[in-house]
């Protein structure tokens, strides 16, 4: 590849490039020739194109003909069938009867200048259709046909096909009505163009010319023959609809393309997944996963949300514990014990026997548990060796590994059973700890062998260690065994890798034993660190962040299959000096932390700049509700506080100050913000217990918010009745009454023909005052979009716009639920209220009074006085006052 690219650049430098030369006589002549050549080439391209079209049309015609002929056969068959059935050629027979037929004009009588005039007359009373023909040769005929009446069918009120939404959705980018939408008014017979009223729409970016093959040919030809001078470009411009700079750019592309083709050197960039950094690997996760809804591709909050990192880290659930049980036989704890034990091996040597037997018997009594633990260990081993490259260096060090790396598939069970042929010094050593639990049928000589090995104490320590803790770690091991079940399917692989591992472990242990104690970690480091890939390193850093310096958890949860606990630990404990030698692959722990820290800082910075950018854009557009001042388009609004502000999580790492996006927007910080829980701008939820959060005494209710189990003290969600062993509801069956939207505890709504106009929403079961009925869902659109759509909707006198907050309007026209059909009334039985539910504004419809079953639902759309249509205009008098009163009260509530 390197050679080809160098060649390409070489030859490109050889190409005649004379941009600064004036046109000499010779060049001018050349250009004329070029012009001719290009014209010819163009004609050639065009004729090729026409020929290609002809070919394709012809091919299509043939295919179609085959098909229509087949269809004709079907029709002919149908004819035969209907004739056979004597069902009758009803239509033809009618014609043949003659009385309906008129023969007025002989088409052969002349060139047909004198047409017949047939006039029909409907006689609705008689139910007949009279057809009279006159003219032609003077003959006049009348044909009478009985009119068949099609009985009236009730038509349904008009609607546009809509899609049910159980949750608001943000408008997809391609759903805008666009710059120019033509609305056709059938009554006035007028086409209305709903284009942008404002001129601040950014002009569509200059469309880049897409070069066709034919144009490529022209450019290629011209540049090959005449170089890439300005004159040539000018000539090309006459043939190709593109700017000279575009053509120049294209010619470079073409040059590279053809050059490459001639060299026929294709780069195979097979990239290993592991070569990617975690940022790259997690890109889609970061972009597509919604951290508020916990779903991918969230339709409500959209993609590419700002990543907000909480400043308060969860306390590490598992602190590094000196008395910890090893997580597996690749656990770093084991090595530490080995290290300790080398000091007093004599004493251990004798105790191990007893300990081991004890462990066996204990394990027998808890077969399942230990088995699960085994699988756990196996799993760890798989992890450690699935990257062959990583382990290969170790394997080659091990004298036994060679044999165990490639066991024939059939040997799987054999290996499992520890056949005596196998090199048992390494394998058996492991099997002891494993199979002792399953059965005690191990031959004594096998043990003998093991204990005659140079490092018996290591193993015995292993078992000893696991015995006392086996009881308390049961749940854990079961859990992990369950987690790892899927990977148990492949016994072959498992065993081979396991054996491999055992080999390598032995080897390292051997090494460490042979080595000085001080060298223990350093020697091991040589194996593992050099093979830490970028992804593994990133995962490791993430692990440090999540679990603290707990190599067991990091290895098990994040690097399973990639690194063993021991490798993680040695990586963790490496000091900076050794790492500094490999600036690319390794960093000291401190360095890692520093880097990680820095990384988050940067990310935070990025998030902030994004926010800033967005703000900037918003300011530029100046198209919020207030600045727009659009009195023309009708939008429904909710009761209560008049204007809400869209909440966007802030990414503040420290206390929220003046710079905080939330503070600036005037919203409270929510649980999705980065700031700490003690942030002064946070909404702290309520402490209500018995009031069920149904009155204004509840701070949540008063602020038009639903309670949040994550925030409020006593509002929580219980599930089930306790029969499945889940904790019972707290507080004497008290259930918060202010989480209905969150929990979707809605009433059954029916859709029917309204008694008032068009469609209507009806309630199935009776409800009480202030009961929650359901949500008004729809597409979240900007105010600008709402104005565009609203113009059309208002024309059609059917608008489903609902003002949600300063940033969004809900449009239920195409997507929504049945409550969108609830009609307006100035004396309604329901009211709409915008509630903040988990950071999102949502519209709940509530009963204003008690509503009986199957009553139609109405609420006040609260259209502004100047945009309200006649049917929504407030009757003069008392009603108006009431509205203003409720307004006023609402404001008070907000405070």
């Amino acid at each position: 590849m390197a050679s080809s690219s160098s060649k390409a650049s070489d030859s490109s430098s050889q190409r005649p490039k004379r941009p600064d030369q004036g046109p000499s006589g010779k060049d001018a002549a050349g250009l004329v020739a070029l012009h001719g050549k290009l014209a010819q080439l163009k004609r050639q391209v065009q004729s090729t194109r026409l020929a290609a079209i002809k070919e394709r049309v012809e091919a299509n015609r043939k295919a179609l003909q085959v098909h229509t002929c087949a269809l004709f056969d079907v029709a002919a068959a149908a004819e035969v069938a209907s004739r056979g059935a004597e069902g009758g050629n009803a239509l033809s027979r009618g014609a043949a009867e003659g009385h309906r037929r008129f023969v007025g004009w002989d088409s052969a009588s002349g060139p047909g200048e004198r047409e017949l005039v047939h006039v029909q007359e409907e006689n609705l009373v008689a139910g007949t259709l009279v057809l009279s023909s006159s003219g032609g040769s003077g003959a006049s005929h009348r044909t009478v046909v009985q009119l068949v009446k099609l009985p009236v069918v009730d038509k349904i009120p008009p609607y546009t096909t809509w899609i049910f939404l159980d949750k608001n959705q943000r408008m997809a980018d391609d759903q805008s009505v666009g710059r120019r939408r033509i609305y056709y008014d059938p009554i006035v017979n007028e086409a209305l163009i709903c284009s942008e009223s404002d001129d601040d729409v950014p002009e569509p970016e200059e469309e880049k010319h897409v070069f066709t093959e034919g144009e490529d040919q022209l450019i290629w030809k011209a540049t090959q023959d005449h170089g890439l001078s300005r004159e040539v470009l000018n000539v090309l411009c006459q043939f190709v609809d593109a700017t000279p700079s575009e053509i120049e750019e294209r010619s470079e592309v073409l040059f590279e393309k053809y050059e490459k083709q001639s060299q026929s050197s294709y780069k195979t960039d097979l990239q290993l997944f592991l070569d990617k950094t975690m940022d790259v690997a997690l890109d889609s996760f970061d972009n597509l996963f919604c951290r508020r809804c916990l779903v991918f591709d969230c339709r409500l909050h959209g993609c590419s949300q700002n990543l907000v990192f909480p400043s308060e880290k969860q306390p590490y659930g598992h602190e590094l514990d000196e008395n910890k049980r090893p997580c597996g036989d690749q656990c770093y704890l084991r090595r530490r014990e080995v290290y300790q034990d080398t000091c007093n091996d004599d004493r251990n040597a004798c105790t191990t026997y007893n300990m081991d037997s004890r462990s066996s018997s204990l394990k027998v009594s808890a077969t399942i548990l230990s088995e699960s633990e085994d699988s756990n260990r196996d799993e760890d081993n798989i992890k450690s060796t699935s990257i062959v490259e990583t382990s290969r260096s170790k394997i080659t060090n091990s004298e036994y590994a060679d044999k165990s790396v490639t066991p024939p598939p059939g040997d799987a069970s054999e290996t499992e059973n520890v056949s005596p042929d196998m090199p048992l010094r390494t394998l058996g050593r492991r099997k002891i700890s494993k199979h002792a639990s399953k059965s005690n049928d191990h031959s004594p000589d096998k043990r003998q062998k093991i204990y005659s090995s140079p490092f018996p104490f290591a193993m015995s320590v292993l078992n000893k260690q696991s015995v006392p803790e086996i009881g308390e770690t049961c749940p854990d091991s079961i859990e992990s065994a369950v987690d790892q079940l899927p990977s148990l399917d492949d016994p072959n692989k498992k065993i081979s890798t396991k054996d491999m591992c055992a080999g390598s472990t032995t080897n390292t242990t051997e090494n460490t034993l042979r080595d000085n104690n001080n060298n223990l970690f350093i020697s091991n480091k040589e194996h593992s660190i050099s093979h830490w890939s970028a992804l593994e390193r990133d995962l490791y850093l993430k692990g440090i962040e999540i679990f603290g310096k707990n190599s067991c958890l990091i290895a098990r949860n994040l690097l399973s299959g990639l690194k063993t606990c021991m490798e993680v630990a040695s990586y963790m404990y490496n000091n900076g000096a050794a790492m500094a030698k490999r600036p690319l692959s390794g960093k000291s722990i401190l360095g890692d932390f520093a880097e990680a820290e820095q990384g988050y800082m940067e990310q935070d910075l990025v998030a902030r700049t994004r926010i800033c950018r967005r703000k900037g854009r918003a300011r530029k557009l100046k198209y919020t509700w207030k600045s727009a001042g659009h009195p023309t388009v009708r939008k429904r609004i909710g009761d209560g506080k008049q204007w809400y502000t869209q909440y966007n999580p802030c990414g503040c790492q420290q206390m929220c100050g003046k710079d905080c996006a939330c503070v600036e927007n005037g919203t409270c910080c929510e649980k999705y913000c980065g700031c700490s829980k003690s942030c002064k701008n946070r909404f702290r939820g309520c402490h209500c217990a018995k009031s069920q959060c149904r009155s204004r005494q509840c701070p949540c209710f008063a602020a038009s918010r639903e309670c949040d189990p994550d925030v409020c003290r006593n509002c929580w969600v219980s599930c089930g009745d306790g029969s499945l062993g889940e904790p019972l509801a707290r507080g004497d069956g008290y259930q918060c009454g202010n989480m209905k939207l969150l929990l979707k505890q809605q009433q059954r709504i029916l859709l029917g023909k309204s008694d008032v106009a068009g469609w209507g929403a009806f309630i199935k079961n009776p409800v009480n005052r202030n009961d929650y009925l359901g949500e008004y869902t729809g597409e979240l659109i900007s105010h600008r979009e709402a104005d565009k759509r609203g113009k059309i909707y208002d024309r059609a006198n059917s608008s489903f716009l609902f003002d949600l907050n300063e940033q969004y309007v809900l449009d239920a026209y195409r997507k929504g639920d049945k409550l969108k059909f609830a009609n307006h009334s100035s004396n309604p039985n329901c009211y709409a209220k915008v509630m903040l539910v988990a950071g999102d504004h949502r519209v709940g419809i509530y009963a204003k009074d008690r509503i009986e079953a199957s009553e139609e639902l109405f609420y006040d759309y609260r259209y502004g006085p100047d945009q309200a249509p006649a049917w929504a205009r407030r009757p003069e008098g008392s009603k108006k006052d009431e509205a203003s009163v409720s307004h006023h009260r609402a404001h008070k509530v907000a405070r």
Partner: protein
Amino acid sequence: MAKLGPGQGLGCEAAVGLLAPSRKREYKACNKLTEGKRPLYAIGFNFLDFHYYEVFATVGGNRVTTYSCLKDGNFAILQAYIDEDKDESFYTLSWACDLDGTPLLVAAGSNGIIRVINCATEKLLKTFVGHGDSINEIRTQALKPSLIISASKDESVRLWNVHTGICILIFAGAGGHRNEVLSVDFHPSDIYRIASCGMDNTVKIWSMKEFWPYVEQSFTWTDLPSKFPTKYVQFPVLVAVVHSNYVDCTRWLGDFILSKSVDNEIVLWEPKTKEQSPGEGSIDILQKYPVPECDIWFIKFSCDFHFNQLAIGNREGKVFVWEVQSSPPVLTARLTNPQCKSAIRQTAVSFDGSTILACSEDGSIWRWDEVDHPKA
């Protein structure tokens, strides 16, 4: 969903037909029938049964009428149906067949109600209520003539089974049309495919392959039609922006598509879809058939059984007959008559192309017959 535009530039030119008639086939006006004063919006021959190849129907106002095209150049009126709702205005008709071959006539219009008429018994067979607004076109699946598809102002396209009266599928939603759907057509050979177009200036190609089990199910459904699990098809296979204004007629021509807007031309283009990744693909405009003075919407064209002749009327009452499958396109004839002046909304070409009918805004039907047609 990405909208696809046609390729432009050198090597992407379309073959444009010349407006000089080849006079390969000569036609002469031989008859005129005035139904009334109300505009006739649709006319169509029955190609579903060999018996009825000479039978055609018209709709206009609240009336549906069937005629026979007599060989001597005359019409014979066969049946007339009248909707008791005087305000109904039928916009479209399509012939269909019941499973036993009974000829059915399907008509619909401003009320959004589909009327299925049994022409053998001269009785209303079924009425489909469901569309939320007026219906602009109905087409029949020739391979399964009891399947019909309707395009509506309610921005949806619906697939119905006239045998069981079931609405099987609704093509609308997230990727659906954003304005009235004006025209729809079944692919002639690929039974899963349909194309629709409308006031949102797009042509959408849909596939019901994944939903075909529901279509099968609709034939054996015995419960109430309203209980059928009607499915929404929300995403088309391809969205093509070939025109810059209302697209009011689209027809498959084999694997190619003929469509027209208000730009005085019909465009033949090839949609290249990708089965694996819906929404992707490309569009190649192959041919253009100029039609002068054809700049108002709701003017539809039609072809003969074998798709050899295409006839389209214009705003001034002229009919252009194109040899649609020749390349470059050849204008067969321009059919005119001094008395035929009002806009022609729809044409009908007989099975072999020897008779061309046109229905016009002033409520009359015009007939042109081929001179010296070998069959006549």
